[in-house]
């Protein structure tokens, strides 16, 4: 059992020395590095590289801001898989500011934040959960009497890297769904002068968050990302292409109604609204909560929560994805997937598909710099 910060890691120690003093065996450490290498898509051959990078790494500071949000993303991190060794990932950092867990409150908490930003200027990793409400000069979220916008702008200035965790920090999520009463936006709409990585999902799988931190420690940079700023090691593939129920889809075996005979045989959920064909997420591969299950695995259609603006573009959640005439069903669905299903409603035009295909080409080009501004969807006439 390793608690994130219950164990000291002095400035002088490397990780290798640190682990040794706390009794982690070399073999356990290499197993852990091997798991991380696999999650990061490096294959087992990447194990030595992860191990050597982690061993020489000094303990970096993490400042975690929680802005306009529901705390679900923090809870997700608390559920990180790989019992005991998984928590090690959080133990890799000095978590200097984190509202949900920190002992001090009020002035003591804000002092800790200021001290950490000052002492680690230019060095710390900034993790952000929650959106930034911009309407009415930002009055809809304040901490210590200051607005979320002021707080994140100050914290980002000295950050070596910025990681936006969850749909709220990514693009605003549920409070940014139409009509977005508070003018909520994601981190990239506010922090424009440095790259922001987006760990997408509502919430994301905890292991993706921890693996991203390991990647940063191992390679000294954030992992390659798609046009949405989502790391490719986790968000590079569609759910539909990795789904264990794909064979049922291809065979035309569909759940027509919840709890029908097909549902009791675990058939494909496409006809009851599954958004897997339009959703890039590692859910079927990593699964949830120490690999217990995942949404489709428990019989409910995917709602597309790793995609920007999904509350508007993927809903109604139980409506079948648009039927584009002129193709066989599989061809049709793949086209929609490629087009990211920018609307789940009827009325997709050829122009829409062209736009979507353009996006997918960008998505598949990891060398392209992540766009800073995700275009907001337009209201339907």
């Amino acid at each position, binding site marked *: 059992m390793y608690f994130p*910060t*219950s164990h*000291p890691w002095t*400035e002088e120690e490397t990780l290798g020395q640190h682990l040794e*003093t706390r009794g982690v065996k070399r073999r356990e450490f290499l197993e852990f590095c091997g798991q991380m290498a696999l999650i990061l898509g490096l294959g087992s051959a990447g194990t030595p590289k992860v191990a050597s990078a982690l061993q020489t790494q000094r303990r970096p500071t993490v400042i975690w801001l929680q802005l*306009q*949000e*529901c*705390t*679900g993303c923090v809870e997700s991190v608390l*559920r990180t898989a790989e019992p*005991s060794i998984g928590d090690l990932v959080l133990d890799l950092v000095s*978590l*200097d500011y984190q*509202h*949900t*867990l*920190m*002992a*001090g*409150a009020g*002035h003591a*908490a*804000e002092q*800790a934040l200021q001290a950490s930003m000052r002492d680690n200027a230019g060095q710390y990793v900034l993790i952000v959960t929650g959106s930034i409400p911009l309407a009415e000069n930002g*009055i*809809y*979220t304040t*901490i210590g*009497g200051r607005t979320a916008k002021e707080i994140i702008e100050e914290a980002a200035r000295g950050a070596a890297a910025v990681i936006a965790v969850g749909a709220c920090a990514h693009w605003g999520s*549920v*409070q940014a*769904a*139409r*009509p977005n*009463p*508070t003018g909520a936006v994601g981190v990239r709409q506010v922090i424009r002068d440095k790259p922001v990585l987006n760990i997408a999902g509502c*919430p994301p*799988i905890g292991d993706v968050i921890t693996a991203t931190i390991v990647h940063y420690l191992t390679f000294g940079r954030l992992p390659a990302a798609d046009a949405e700023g989502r790391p490719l090691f986790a968000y590079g593939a569609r759910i539909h292409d990795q789904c264990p129920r794909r064979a049922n889809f291809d065979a035309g075996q569909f759940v027509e109604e*919840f*709890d029908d005979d097909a549902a*009791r045989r*675990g058939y494909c959920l496409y006809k009851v609204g599954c958004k897997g064909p339009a959703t890039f997420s590692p859910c079927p591969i990593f699964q949830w*909560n*120490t690999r217990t299950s995942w949404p489709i695995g*428990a*019989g409910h259609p995917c709602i597309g929560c790793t995609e920007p603006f999904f509350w*508007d*573009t993927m*809903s109604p*959640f*139980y*409506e079948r994805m648009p039927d584009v005439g002129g193709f066989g069903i599989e061809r049709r669905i793949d086209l929609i997937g490629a087009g990211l299903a*920018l609307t789940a*409603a009827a*009325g997709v*035009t050829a*122009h829409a598909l062209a736009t979507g295909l353009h996006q997918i080409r960008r998505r598949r080009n990891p060398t392209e710099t992540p766009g800073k501004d995700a275009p907001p969807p337009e*209201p*339907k006439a």
Partner: protein
Amino acid sequence: MAVTKVVVDPITRIEGHLRIEVQEENGRIRDAWATSTQFRGIEQVMVGRDPRDAWAFTQRICGVCTVVHAVASCRAVEDALDITIPPNANLIRNLIHGMQFVQDHVIHFYHLHALDWVDVVSALSANPEGTAGIARRISPWPNNSATYFKEVQDRIRRFVSGGQLGIFTNGYWGHPAYKLPPEVNLLAVAHYLEALDWQRDVIRLHTVFGGKNPHPNFLVGGMASAINLDDAATINTERLTDIRDMITRAQRFVEQVYWPDLMAIAGFYKDWAAIGGGLRNYLACGEFPDGDVRQIDTMYFPRGIILDRDLTRVHPYDPELIKEYISSSWYEYSVGDQEGLHPYQGETQARYSGPPTPWTYLQDHPKYTWMKAPRYDGRPMEVGPLARMLVAYASGHDDAREMVAEVLNRLEVGPAALFSTLGRVAARGMETVLLARRMNVWYDQLVGRIRGGDVATFSGEKWEPKTWPATCQGYGFLDAPRGALGHWVQIANGKISRYQCVVPSTWNCSPRDPQGQMGAYEASLVDNHPLLRPEQPLEILRTIHSFDPCMACGVHVLDAHGTEVTRVKVQ
């Protein structure tokens, strides 16, 4: 003595963003203001949506009590459309909600609340042999050796001497209000760490039925997790066995770790049984139906109202008597600031009228929060574990009476001690024990039904919008870990036309109403409440944390006129 104005913002170790301002005089709190500093407008987002989607939107009100809004929303829509869910679906929801209670309450005790009572630094001077002796006296839990506690202590020692304190930076270590002997501090710290691993395991029950946690999936009309003992992709014997084992491990931890720790720690803080009582009225809306949620008398936790702390009488609860007021909140009503509105007539227009940021004090302003002020028949109410246990106790609930008697007996205090900060903490523990046991009953009922051939989990007769009336409305209630929760939905032509939530933290964190009556947080902070060192407001944290604040839940807005949500098209 001069009056000192004290601001605590942010209150940490809670869900969301909360600011407390108090006035201190001679080491006591003489006045208090609670401010919710976040507003998201989710109910406004609801208008124009498909009612079957509502659970997913409202679920995102909170990622800590991650199932409660989803279930309340499903019940509201099911009430509006007159849907009765299959008994299996009700049992599955009970199991999910029961595990939510148990996991959430344990996390609250160790990870959000314990550091108010437990001095981590003091644990360094503990004798691990002494800790082991205490552990063995109070519990048969296997991790009770001196070697084990020595190991935990060594880890803390290295941590403290390492200089990078992380989340323990700037704690109030050494504050004279910490009363535990070092050996008990060490015991609590060890279990703080164990509980982190435990919670990750038992919450997987949500993942089996709902696919993930946080934010498992639900379904209007039942549950989506189909049952088929002869298929690998459904709820089958392997999955059911996993569930049974999780319930066993949950119960064992609650009975052998959480409850003994709580009782041991409470014994050193009996003075807190006379502090922080606050309001005198308590509301419980009832929870854990035996079958149909509309059969109120089948609820495991009974419904009712306690007035003026009179435990000889339980008054009936009538949701029609709820009104929300905004005279101290940053909203405006078409009927003026002095009137209250029932949720079915609820209207809200956000209108910030406070000072510009950065704030110095809000207490000089007539409006000071994003939280509205719900009142029951004009009265402020406390909701949550204490309200539930009091209502159950006063209703003659056998299990609750037994738990209350055990607590009062072991702490050697009278029933009046329940109306306090310590009473709130104890009540949370009592209901956790009761629910950890009760989950076995629901599990056995579920398996019994499957054995009898009933595998239905969904009722689909009213699934298609063409089967719905042109207009309808429904009330979904649920007594959540933090207290009574209500969702009110109105549906017109297949779409949501109005959606309103009245949430536990809205009750407890409510500001003053037009009569000047405080909400539960505020009232508790001025009830015989010490504050020794205004610059280290440990006592404020104790009482506020005893409510387990959940701020994101408490704040919401409704667009009274129900404008259609525009959908999205591709350019």
